[in-house]
């Protein structure tokens, strides 16, 4: 990767992505070879909103590289509660760590934070903006299961506020991928993501019904429709049921369809899919470790140069 930070998938070239995925595959093959790779290094974990998988996988990834982590802990017990700005927080933690991982509820928080620090900074989710490290593990999973070129992918659910969707859609423009977006009208992709997809010349189609496209798909990436985003509970109820899938739904799909989800799921993927060959979401979550190890390895090694 050529940049010091990972802020947005829009900044990733195909070469950048392949460098991380190839390194992750090396790590997957021989994790022990990387065990002392960054001994003595410290990763600062700055999570301003709740997270389980992302926080734990960065923590685990750093430790499996031989390093350690420092965690600012819950916002309620940090200096943020006293009114400290994000700019000050990251400048302070920069003094303790060799790299930072930031999750924040505001869009653009990682872009701003990166202006205040010299150590590598990874955006682990900024509001409804971007979540590029999730995208790298998503791409790794897609590459393993369906390949990244000549790919037909459906992305379904909350496309408006789903940061994993925004990052994935933008990253896929580097590949020969046909992207189908399935959502209620009220949760379509935001204007800026559609602008980027159009500008890149990506093959994109938007749908309101999954059955319009399901048989064509190699991958179906499902996200949770977030009830809390709807001002009216009735409006939520109208659309929520349409975007749930179960084994019956997948009878119309290719036998090779890979079903993914960034998790946590609620009811959008029925448990009766879990034991089918389609289910890839737990493998996808496990891939967070080698991929984040690869990402940290590359960023920390670059910072040493």
């Amino acid at each position: 990767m050529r940049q010091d930070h990972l802020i947005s998938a829009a900044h990733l070239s195909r070469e950048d992505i392949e460098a991380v995925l190839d390194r992750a595959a090396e790590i997957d093959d021989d994790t022990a070879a990387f065990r002392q790779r960054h001994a003595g290094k410290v990763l600062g974990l700055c999570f301003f909103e709740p997270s389980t998988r992302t926080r734990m996988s960065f923590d685990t990834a750093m430790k499996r590289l031989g390093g350690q982590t420092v965690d600012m802990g819950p916002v309620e017990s940090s200096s943020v509660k006293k009114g400290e700005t994000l700019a000050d927080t990251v400048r302070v933690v920069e003094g303790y760590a060799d790299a930072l991982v930031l999750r924040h509820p505001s869009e653009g928080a990682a872009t701003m934070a990166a202006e205040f620090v010299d150590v590598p900074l990874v955006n682990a989710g900024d509001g409804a903006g971007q979540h590029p490290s999730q995208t790298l593990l998503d791409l790794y999973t897609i590459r393993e299961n369906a390949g990244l070129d000549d790919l037909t992918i459906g992305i379904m659910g909350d496309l408006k506020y789903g940061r994993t969707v925004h990052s994935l859609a933008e990253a896929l423009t580097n590949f020969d991928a046909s992207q189908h977006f399935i959502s209620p009208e009220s949760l379509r992709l935001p204007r800026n993501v559609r602008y980027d997809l159009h500008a890149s010349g990506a093959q994109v189609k938007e749908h309101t019904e999954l059955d319009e496209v399901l048989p064509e798909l190699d991958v179906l990436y499902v996200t949770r429709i977030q009830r809390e985003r709807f001002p009216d509970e009735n409006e939520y109820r109208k659309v929520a049921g349409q975007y749930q899938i179960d084994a019956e739904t997948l009878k119309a799909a290719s036998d090779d369809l890979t079903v993914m989800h960034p998790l946590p799921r609620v009811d959008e993927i029925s448990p009766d899919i879990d034991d089918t060959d389609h289910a890839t979401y737990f493998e996808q979550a496990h891939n967070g470790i080698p991929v984040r190890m690869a990402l940290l390895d590359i960023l920390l090694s670059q910072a040493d140069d």
Partner: protein
Amino acid sequence: MTDDHQLRVSKIQNGTVIDHVAAGQALNVLAILGIDGTSGEAVSVGMNVPSDRLGRKDIVKVEGRELSQSEVDVISLIAPAASINIVRDYDVIEKNRVVRPDVVTGIISCPNRNCITNADEPITSRFTVLSDGVRCDYCESIVREDEVAANLDVN
């Protein structure tokens, strides 16, 4: 013909004539300049005046004031065909077309209330100029040309 039409609004002795403003944008130009009639500046406004170049245009004449570059930058976003004429002793001594900048800083508020620029952080808003609007450098929200005026932060 243009001069005749410009005479529909009175000549000024010293100040600025902002000509070839897209029809309907004159009041937004006044907003950019922070002119609301309370500060005593003499201002003439022509709206929907016939124009060879634009079909219809607005004209704003401000007595006793020359514009800052940041004001001109914002005017260029809502009126990309505008020209800025500096008048001294009733003569136009300088006439320049506005040039759209690559980036505008500190003069537009991001309409995304959840953007970090709207939090209490030590940063200034910054937008990259697109062909038909601007884009927040932080949250990446796009503000279309016809929405810029509603998000001005110049007063």
